[in-house]
């Protein structure tokens, strides 16, 4: 077996697990992007939809794995395998969504809202985000002050053994690239943590309002941990050529530790999200969701609403203010690409 198989086969398996589990773990009372009530998922009909989705995902995963194993060293073999998995999930979702619509329930018309003024963003999340930016600021200072110590040939890619296999000539742009990407990633994740807390619904129908704030706190706290882990990871990559062993992946096993920690945070969020009690839908009308994936409701002042295809939040594309967030997120995602091309 080649090293590619050892590393990428478990990734394919994990992708299969995520594609199997994620779409079936939205807020309670929503199933395959349709408001069905909390009991539907456990009903025989609900279990049938779930079983079909699982079968399609794992059939596609098996097919993807076979295609990958035919030529594991080929640069696109892994990408094709993941695309096949995604196609399996998409077909499971589309069929599940279509059939769940027959059991759709209208959202209740009663609404409850607290008269407590705006709550303060959780202190723990604030400390974690501030720490993430402190780590990045320290790394920027280090890299700028010790530019001369960076090698003339900078590693930009590492092979499966953790050894650098692609290099570029040293320049300010390449030296700073990891920090530019890291800063944008941390800014994106941190702003998400903040906006989810301040711009999504606290109230709702009496059946759904319970623990809604807990869901937001869970997401904000988890994203703040992610922001700190990302800042540490990118700081390690950025300072690696000076502090590390030259052509080895900076941090070695520590880097894998960061990836594992990020996975743990995501999985923990996933498990806790559905375990929080309360929920009989999400108070949004089904007709404002396109395939249960894209929310467009100009009548709803909420900027963020709970996702219907997994854990977390999505924007209300029908609210013009959401586009400010989308624009900022796109700018932060595009900035590293633009900067490195200059």
């Amino acid at each position, binding site marked *: 077996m080649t090293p590619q198989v050892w590393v990428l086969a478990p990734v394919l398996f994990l992708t299969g697990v995520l594609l199997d589990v994620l779409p079936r773990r939205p807020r309670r009372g929503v199933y395959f992007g349709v408001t069905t009530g909390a009991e539907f998922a456990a009903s025989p009909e609900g279990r049938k939809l779930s079983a079909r989705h699982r079968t399609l995902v794992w059939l596609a995963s098996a097919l993807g794995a076979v295609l990958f194993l035919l030529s594991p060293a080929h640069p696109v073999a892994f990408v094709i395998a993941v695309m096949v998995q995604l196609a399996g999930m998409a077909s499971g979702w589309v069929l599940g969504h279509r059939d769940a619509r027959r059991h759709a329930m209208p959202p209740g018309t009663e*609404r409850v*809202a607290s*008269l*407590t*003024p*705006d709550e303060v963003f959780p202190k723990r999340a604030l400390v974690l985000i501030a720490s993430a930016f402190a780590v990045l600021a320290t790394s920027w200072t280090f890299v700028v002050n010790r530019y001369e110590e960076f090698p003339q040939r900078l590693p930009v890619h590492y092979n499966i053994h953790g050894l650098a296999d692609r290099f570029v000539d040293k320049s300010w742009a390449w030296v700073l690239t990891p920090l530019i990407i890291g800063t944008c990633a941390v800014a994106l994740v941190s702003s998400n943590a903040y906006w989810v807390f301040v711009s*999504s*619904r*606290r109230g709702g129908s009496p059946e759904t309002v319970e623990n809604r704030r807990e869901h937001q706190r869970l997401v904000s706290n988890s994203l703040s941990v992610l922001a700190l882990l990302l800042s540490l990871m990118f700081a390690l990559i950025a300072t690696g050529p000076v502090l590390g062993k030259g052509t080895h992946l900076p941090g070695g096993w520590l880097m894998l530790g960061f990836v594992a920690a990020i996975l743990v945070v995501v999985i923990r969020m996933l498990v806790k999200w559905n375990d929080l009690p309360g929920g009989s839908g999400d108070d949004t009308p089904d007709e404002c969701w396109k395939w249960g994936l894209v929310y467009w409701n100009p009548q709803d*002042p909420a900027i963020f609403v709970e996702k219907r295809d997994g854990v977390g939040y999505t924007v209300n594309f029908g609210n013009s203010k959401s586009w400010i967030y989308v624009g900022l997120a796109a700018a932060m995602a595009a900035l590293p690409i633009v900067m490195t091309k200059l």
Partner: protein
Amino acid sequence: MSDALEIRIDLSGPEAVFRQIASQIRGLLLNGSLKAGDALPGVRRLSTDLGVHFNTVAEAYRQLASEGWLDVSHGRAVRVLDRPMPKPDAAQAEAYRERLRRLVGEMRADGFRLNRIRKEIQDVLEEMEA
């Protein structure tokens, strides 16, 4: 402000949503749950939480501000004002009597007996006193 104060509205109810919001907050002001100096959620916050249009909550707040209950100055938090109780005049009393007459008429038309109507009014008054 006492903890966990909340309002409940019915989007499909016969009464306009902004009136439901205004009358519930007014009720909390009258029974002392909301006191002078207490802060209320901003218009954007409350409209997001209730899932209603921004203007609906703004209209409810404007109505309460015009009655002297709230300070809704632009750019500041919405706060409860120290509102002295106005002296009712005869014309107002007559207007309220007319509204009550209409309400009692509607209840009778819906089959409520006079004893029951008297009890309902008594309960509301006791709730307010409590």
